[in-house]
């Protein structure tokens, strides 16, 4: 058995590892290589320029602004989304009034809410962004229309057109479109926590908040942690890009108030035909993403509870 072990394992792993190397590792290596060239992306000739792209990036105000926004997204968005999702999931599963026959139960109509919360997940981010673009229309959009209807006709913000509000508008859209997924994820996690724990705690006179912090959260920690990484990557990557690209002024504006790293990568590569500089920013984005994942894993390390 021992004898053929390696050959056996290698036999199974070689195909997936080769695929991984070709389609994941190789593009990474390639991108890093191109970041040291002056490749335009439109012609096959280019030359090495050393660290020129990196020096340029470090002196580029727009890069720092994009980085700042991306970091804000990566820190704030998971916090708010997961917090809200945890709250909703708790209410749906444990938060209800005591009813006959069950010690713990969700709020009334929790089955309906579960579907309602999950619904935005069915729509792609592109469609969600388009819908909100109409809602944010300061001229005849839903939000300002509602404000007018309830007598706040004097408060008619420009939403996406206002540099102080635009970034928050984008975040709200991402929050709306992702929170439902985590509600369902956490609900599933909570359903697997044995009911006796709650019953015992309630018998001891624990309040709902105590049961949440002492029972639900610790037993759900693994799920929360992976949710955190997933949400952070989403906020640093494609979803944030799509929302900004579709909804915002410019896009990335007004006056660079919503620009994010992936948008800057896209613009450098496909608008400015400076693929080398785009890959340089891409490398920076890679580092930020890896750091984020490492920090979350490190901070979140806890003893695993068996139950």
């Amino acid at each position, binding site marked *: 058995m*021992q004898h053929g072990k390696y050959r056996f394992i290698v036999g199974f792993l070689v195909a997936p590892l080769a695929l991984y190397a070709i389609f994941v590792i190789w593009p990474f290596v390639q991108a890093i290589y*191109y970041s040291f060239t002056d490749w335009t*992306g439109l012609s096959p*000739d280019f030359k090495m320029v050393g660290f020129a792209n990196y020096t340029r990036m470090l002196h580029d105000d727009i890069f720092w602004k994009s980085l700042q926004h991306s970091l804000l997204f990566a820190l704030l968005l998971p916090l708010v989304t997961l917090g809200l999702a945890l709250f909703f999931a708790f209410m749906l599963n444990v938060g209800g009034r005591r009813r006959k026959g069950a010690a713990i139960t969700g709020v009334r109509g929790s089955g309906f809410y579960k579907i309602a919360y999950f619904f935005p997940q069915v729509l792609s981010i592109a469609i969600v962004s388009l819908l909100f673009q109409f809602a944010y229309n*300061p001229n005849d959009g839903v939000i300002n229309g509602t404000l007018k209807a309830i007598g706040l006709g004097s408060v008619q913000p420009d939403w996406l057109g206002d540099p102080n509000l635009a970034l928050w508008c984008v975040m709200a859209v991402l929050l709306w479109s992702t929170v439902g997924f985590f509600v369902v994820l956490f609900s599933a996690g909570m359903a697997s926590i044995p009911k006796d724990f709650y019953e015992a705690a309630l018998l001891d006179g624990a309040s709902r908040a105590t049961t949440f912090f002492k029972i639900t959260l610790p037993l759900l920690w693994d799920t929360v942690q992976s949710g955190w990484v997933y949400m952070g990557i989403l906020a640093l990557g494609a979803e944030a890009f799509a929302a900004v690209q579709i909804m915002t*002024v*410019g896009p990335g504006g007004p006056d660079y108030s919503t620009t994010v790293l992936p948008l800057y990568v896209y*613009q450098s590569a496909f608008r400015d*035909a400076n693929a080398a500089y785009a890959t340089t920013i891409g490398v920076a984005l890679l580092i930020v993403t890896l750091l984020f994942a490492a920090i979350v894993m490190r901070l979140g390390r806890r003893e695993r509870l068996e139950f």
Partner: protein
Amino acid sequence: MGSTSAENSNTEGVGRRDLIKRSAALGLISVPTMSFLSACASSDSGSGDKAKAGKKTTKNPLGVNETAPLAVVIFDGGFGTKYATDANAQYKTAYPKAKVNFHATQKIQSELQPKFNGGTPPDLIDNSGAQQMDMGVLVGKKQLTDLTPLLDAPSIDDPSKKVRDTLRPGIVEMGQFDGAPVWIMYYAYTVYGVWYSQTALDKLDATYPETWDAMLALCEKAKKKGIAGWTYAGKYPYYLPFSLYPFIAKIGGREVLDKIDNLEPNAWKDPAVKSAFEAYYELYKKGYILQGTPGIDHIQSQTAWAKGKALFIPNGSWVENESANVIPKDFNLAVSGPTGLDSSDKMPFGTIWASGGEPFIVPAKANNPEGGMEQLRIMLSEASSKNFTSQVKSLTAYNGGTDGITLTPGLKSGVAALDKAGTNVVNPRLQDWYVKLQKEQIGVAGLGEMMAGRLTPAEAIKKIQGYADAAAKDQSIKHYKHQ
């Protein structure tokens, strides 16, 4: 590999053998990776064998090889593709032995970039749309064919005339970047300016204002009736230059725009720029801009304007097609050159911005460049031009081609505006030379902020001059000058 060594390495962390094994594995990965790397972007040799040129005859002045296949890629956008397939069918009739491959797409860049990198581009491309490939880079990297033979070839309609002499003003110049070669053939012809509804003006007993005081008076009159004077694509404030740039030229002469295009120091500090900016800022200050404009996109602004919420919108002639479903039947769409400041302006009222759209290119490494140019020559005939105009409500680069077809109100007004302008057609080049500067920096960060009231004209000018200076210094972009 014995079981003992496996156990040993488990206890000692990374054992000696493991280290060797792992580094060998790494080497296995990295060696092919490096050769891949050098292969990917630099596979420039490609299939360099071009089709042999055919014999030049009077019917075939470009010397097209009658049997060589022709590959055409068309942008499938607002103009559709019918006009191109029609012209393509004509090519097939003229050269029945040639195999013609026609392809329409919206993803110009993602489909064609690999072909340019691989050295196998098609023979004719309509490089248009959101995924347009950067012309400056294509020219700078010698990826395009000089179209001078096409321009010097006799036109289809009148063999005594060269194609060059049948085109509208500015078309040839727009295809040049530095020096004589013409790299791009713009096929559509766009009129930019202030678009409005003649019906709406009639209701206010007004005509289109020729001086800024008259403009302000008209806006005041409209405001009293609850109509805003102006709206624009707030999310894409680079629509504002469509009327602002010719306004600057009208005040200070076309040299001011040339200096701006040439990125000369202090070009934006010209008094004409200051007056024009201040005039536009006054629209904001007096509340003549439709409420919420900074937060709406081009479609939303055009819809609000078509619904009669605002009188004027800076736009291009595509607006008639783009907003066709919201423009009411009795709208009576019209366009005018920008309102001037006063009688001291250097250029007369009617000065307008008009230029080519739908850039067609023939790649340098195309297999059949003569075929690509011949296809363009067919498209530049009067019949093809008329076909295009009647299908998509836009003029073409062919000068004329509007007789005998019914023109829509906007198109008719565009033709009239061009007649009125005569030689006073300006053609600012920032938007094709320096896309980032024009759209993101001047448009969004400069004009957009000023029109939303967050910058004063003086601050906006200072900011824009800073961007222009930075662009002039940036060695990673190619710089151009007016000839």
